[in-house]
């Protein structure tokens, strides 16, 4: 019981996503942050207000953190199909001095 609970907590903290999700996360990080930087500079330059640049940049960065960091369900759309396990007891038996150990 306690083990199961601990595993769940670990799962939530680690927040693992699948391979397709990782590709998506990488793409989102690069895209959203680059766009944020470009928009921040252009907005500030056109309106001649450097504070606008600062807050646009920081806001966009916060948005990126929000989108990318938590393990959202859309990062887990392609779970990996593992091969079925070989044999019933894990497929490995170890013998020491003619006696079965495991």
């Amino acid at each position: 019981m306690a083990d199961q609970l601990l595993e769940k907590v670990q799962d939530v903290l680690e927040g693992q996503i699948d391979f397709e999700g990782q590709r998506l996360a990488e793409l989102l990080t690069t895209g959203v942050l680059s766009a944020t930087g470009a928009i921040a500079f252009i907005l500030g330059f056109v309106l001649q207000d450097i504070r606008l640049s600062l807050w646009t940049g920081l806001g966009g960065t916060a948005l990126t953190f929000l989108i990318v960091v938590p393990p959202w369900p859309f990062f887990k759309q392609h779970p990996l199909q593992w091969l079925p396990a070989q044999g019933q007891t894990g497929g490995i038996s170890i013998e020491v001095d003619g006696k079965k150990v495991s």
Partner: protein
Amino acid sequence: MHTTLTRLQNVFGFFTTVACFVAVFIALSVVVTPQAPSASIKLQNIQVVKGRPHYYSTKRAEFAHIRFDLDTDISSLFGWNTKQVFLYITATFPSSSTNEPPSQAVIWDAILPSKYEPWHENQYIHPPSASSPSSSSGTKSKSNAKSKSKSSKSKSSASTDAADYNPGLLSLSAQRPKYQITTPAGRIASLSNATLELNWNIQPWVGALVWTNRADFGLWKGLKGGRSKSFDFPALKESGSKGAGAGTGKKEDLKTEKGAESNRGKPA
């Protein structure tokens, strides 16, 4: 990118890169912001008196007290990336021997903050525009808005204070110096061929410190004017040496302008 921690690290790492690039672009954007500063500076009055460099000094030196008129429009220096402009006036005078470079000494300075800079006690406070009612802007500041509300004329303009606050317009007449100048030898009377010059440092939010430019550089026009006609330091004023025995020097007869930075550490 497969755990929360690696995603956090990746996003933050790329954020620093993007921030760095944006900062570089902002710093470079200064070059395409046109500048066209102009100024006229005139010597108003000059006196040379004997005095002590500080109260406990036994050395008595000659000090030049230079009053000046300054009319300047450097509002074009306040671009989107300008934090503040440090404006200062130097007196340049030749050294006693001809093969040495001329001496320069600062007689007055001011920190002109841009619109978005938070208030600080060391910043220059533009004088109220009593003498020239035509100047609608440039003589307002955030801190003296309260004291000006007595006169009805400035009260009406106080509402638009932040909107048309223009720190780059200065019109000073018979301005007292902040610093009285001397030479290392303590002799400055009767020197000839001195000039007053306006100089500045533009301090940006991001990027490089820019100094006075008198030559055109791309979209930046050089400073027009900003240099006085050459003048001579007068002979030593005798009335200043009256109190030589008592040890009271120039302090009574000549007053320097106190800069706002002299308030440092004291409550307003």
